[in-house]
């Protein structure tokens, strides 16, 4: 089942009045839309998203959509989107009443119009599409896809959760939780116990508040790490280039680094060998060696283990006659067995044998000197510290003309490291008995919440309900985790199959997708590689539905070099799903022109801009059937115009 975006129309909004028809040039799968800055690209993208689910517009948001120029302001405006599913066309329209600060939806499920008030999707879509799925269809490579590859982010995991509607299980879990809370409150007794319940309820609320606060911090930190990623990486690279450009100092630094690495390797080996020495009890002088030595000697003196004796008895028991020549009847055998039992068993003998054997081996190897380990470790540690200080001094000297950048990157490094530590360690610290609701560990807070709820259930006499809900919720959570893992494995396999087909040269495969997308054999890919793998990942998720969804991408080649732009063009030309992307001037060389070449012009190239005298002159000679004009907006359908159109630089 194919689901396509056919176009959209807007009037009386912040952006110029436009009427786009994506399918104007036939059945092309890819559409490139060129919209200069200030044309309302962000507004368009946001309203396209909102046109697919029932969004509750707040008054402050409505205000953002109204025309900013006084002469363009209208009391009313609308955004109408046109879609096709299984060959049937339908419309959704968002109507704005700016004078009343109000908005409402109208919809039509047929091509001929006939709009009805309210938001409605065709039956085949209404149970599938929701806001979370829409977030996957409309992506900004910079904001949505890049974080999927960072180990402190959870973008990929969240994408899978959204698409597979795992959050429905979360809602079910919440419903069960609400039910037990309701039961608990209904059962609240009076008197002394009621005071205790109040105390626990207060604590419970504090825990909930803290969890909410930490979840918010978690999101903020992820956002910060994502937003500062490029600045930090670029700055570090810039500093590194400066360091490398000074040949003399660079040589000195490399030499120091070599010596530092060698000292560090010695230091690591010494620590490793020290632990091994400690584990080999008896390999160093001291009480432990003496004690085990005495024990082994005592075993020797006692003739333990006695494996041979038991074997001797066993052999006799197997015979018909005793060694004295008499027949071994049942009674005699019992006497022999009793005597045999006074000796330790074969298995016990083996353990004793191992103790003796291991100690014997240890006494044969060269003795370990723990004092020497201590001295050598300290020596190497000092050497590593000294060399690191020297490297730092040398770097400071080389970067003396870039103090500001150096300081900025240092600060970013520290701040990013703190926030990474928070996301990776602090919020995941285990629960400890003495933890309070002040802790920053989400793991601990959830455990505390569980304990307080148990206590409340006991006090209110609803323990049975509590336990049943805990059992159900644990079962659901466990099923959810297993499903997530299984889906991740399947998606990884499917993505790698696509990578095999689409990355002709040097394919990079996905190793796993748990929290983030982990690439095989490298920490992260280039901007172009990540963009292409990110698109493959999203398409793979989307393909899991019976519906073939469109993918709408903003900034598809931002930050890519020319070769990466060309490879991305090739990659998009191979896609089967509808693909729409927003581009700016700088994206055209090596990307859209390459794409045009690859597809022999069989694609949609659309330019849209706010009308002005200067821009109006550009369309004077354009065929009328390729133009769609309004009083303030202009849409031009044609590759040559798309190619030639250039946005003026600010200030020119």
């Amino acid at each position, binding site marked *: 089942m194919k689901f396509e975006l056919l176009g959209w129309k807007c009037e009386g909004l912040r952006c110029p009045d436009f009427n786009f028809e994506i399918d104007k040039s036939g059945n092309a799968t890819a559409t490139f839309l060129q919209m200069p800055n200030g044309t309302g690209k962000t507004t368009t993208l946001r309203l396209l998203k909102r046109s697919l689910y029932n969004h509750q517009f707040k008054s402050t948001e409505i205000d953002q959509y109204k025309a900013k120029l006084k002469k363009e302001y209208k009391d009313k405006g609308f955004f109408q989107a046109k879609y096709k599913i299984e060959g049937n066309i339908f419309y959704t329209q968002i109507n704005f009443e700016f004078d009343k600060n109000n908005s409402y939806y109208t919809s039509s499920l047929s091509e001929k119009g006939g709009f009805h008030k309210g938001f409605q999707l065709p039956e085949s879509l209404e149970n599938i599409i929701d806001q979370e799925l829409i977030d996957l269809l409309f992506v900004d490579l910079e904001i949505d896809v890049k974080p999927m590859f960072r180990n402190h982010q959870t973008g990929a995991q969240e994408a899978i959760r959204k698409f597979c509607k795992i959050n429905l299980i979360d809602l079910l879990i919440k419903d069960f939780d609400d039910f037990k809370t309701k039961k608990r409150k209904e059962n609240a007794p009076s008197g002394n116990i009621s005071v205790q319940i109040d105390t626990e309820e207060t604590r419970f609320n504090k825990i909930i508040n803290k969890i909410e606060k930490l979840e918010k911090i978690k999101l903020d930190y992820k956002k910060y790490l994502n937003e500062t990623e490029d600045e930090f990486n670029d700055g570090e690279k810039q500093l590194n280039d400066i360091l490398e450009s000074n040949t003399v100092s660079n040589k000195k630094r490399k030499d120091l680094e070599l010596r530092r690495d060698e000292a560090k390797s010695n230091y690591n080996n010494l*620590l490793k060998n020290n*632990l091994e020495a400690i584990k080999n009890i008896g390999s160093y002088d001291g*009480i432990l060696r003496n004690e*085990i030595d005495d*024990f082994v000697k005592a075993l020797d003196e006692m003739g*333990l283990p006695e494996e041979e004796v038991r074997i001797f008895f066993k052999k006799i028991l197997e015979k018909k006659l005793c060694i004295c020549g008499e027949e071994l009847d049942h009674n005699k055998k019992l006497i022999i067995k009793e005597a045999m039992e006074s000796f*330790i068993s074969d298995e*016990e003998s083996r353990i*004793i044998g191992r103790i003796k054997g291991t100690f014997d081996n240890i006494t044969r190897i060269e003795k370990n000197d723990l004092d020497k380990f201590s001295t050598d*470790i300290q020596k190497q540690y000092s050497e590593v510290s000294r060399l690191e200080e020297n490297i730092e001094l040398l770097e400071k000297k080389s970067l003396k003309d870039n103090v500001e950048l150096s300081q900025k990157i240092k600060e970013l490094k520290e701040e990013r490291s703190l926030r990474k530590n928070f996301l990776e360690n602090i919020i995941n610290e285990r629960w400890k008995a003495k933890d309070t609701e002040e802790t920053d560990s989400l793991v601990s807070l959830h455990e505390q919440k569980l304990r307080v709820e148990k206590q409340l259930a006991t006090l209110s006499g609803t323990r049975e309900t509590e336990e049943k809900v805990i059992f159900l919720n644990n079962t659901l959570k466990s099923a959810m985790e297993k499903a997530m893992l299984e889906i991740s494995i399947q998606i990884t396999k499917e993505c790698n199959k696509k990578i095999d087909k689409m990355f002709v040269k040097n394919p990079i495969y996905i190793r796993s997708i748990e929290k983030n997308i982990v690439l095989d054999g490298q920490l992260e890919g280039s901007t172009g590689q990540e963009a292409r793998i990110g698109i493959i990942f999203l398409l793979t998720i989307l393909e899991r539905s019976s519906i073939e969804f469109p993918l709408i991408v903003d900034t598809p080649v931002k930050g890519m070099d020319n070769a990466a732009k060309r490879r991305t063009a090739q990659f998009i030309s191979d896609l089967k799903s509808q693909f729409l992307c927003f581009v700016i001037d700088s994206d055209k060389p090596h990307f859209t022109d390459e794409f045009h070449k690859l597809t022999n012009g069989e694609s949609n190239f659309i330019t849209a801009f706010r009308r002005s005298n200067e821009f109006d002159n550009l369309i004077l000679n354009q065929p009328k059937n390729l133009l769609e004009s309004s009083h303030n907006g202009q849409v031009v359908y044609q590759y040559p115009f798309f190619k030639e159109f250039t946005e003026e630089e600010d200030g020119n």
Partner: protein
Amino acid sequence: MSFKLVDSKKKEEDQKFINCKDFFKNIRYEKDSSSPIRFDMDNFMLCLILGLKLDKKENYDDFHFQQEFSSKYIDSYSKTKDLITGLLLSKIMKSKKIDKNEKTKVKNLLKEVLDTNDDIYIKKEYVNLIHEYYLGGYCALLKEFDNKEPNEVSIFFNKYNKLIKD
């Protein structure tokens, strides 16, 4: 049977007590890539060996433990397992005042202590004894480090080497 790390002291007034996992956290491999201390088993064994050396035990029931981290000695401790078992048997012999000339008593003791079906070699009641020596060693380490987590792995081994040797 299985190994567990200590979490807290049952007497609530002892606020200084740090749980064993936290004590080692700054000098574990995850935090400091130079560190050879990678597993919970490393935390446990460093304390146990020290407890055995100092012949220091703490009452098992005075502490809360975390969930078990392993039901057997991990591979890198296969030799240590034999030596720990030997030392434990030696300690029990001494505590029961069994002389090396009393072979029958020694043999009975071996039967009483060793569990040939268990990966740890030791019967359940004596696994608690292992934990008591582990606690003894851990409390000695806490004392040595003034109830604060060590921050530097080289300093940790320096102090530990002294304790295990003196």
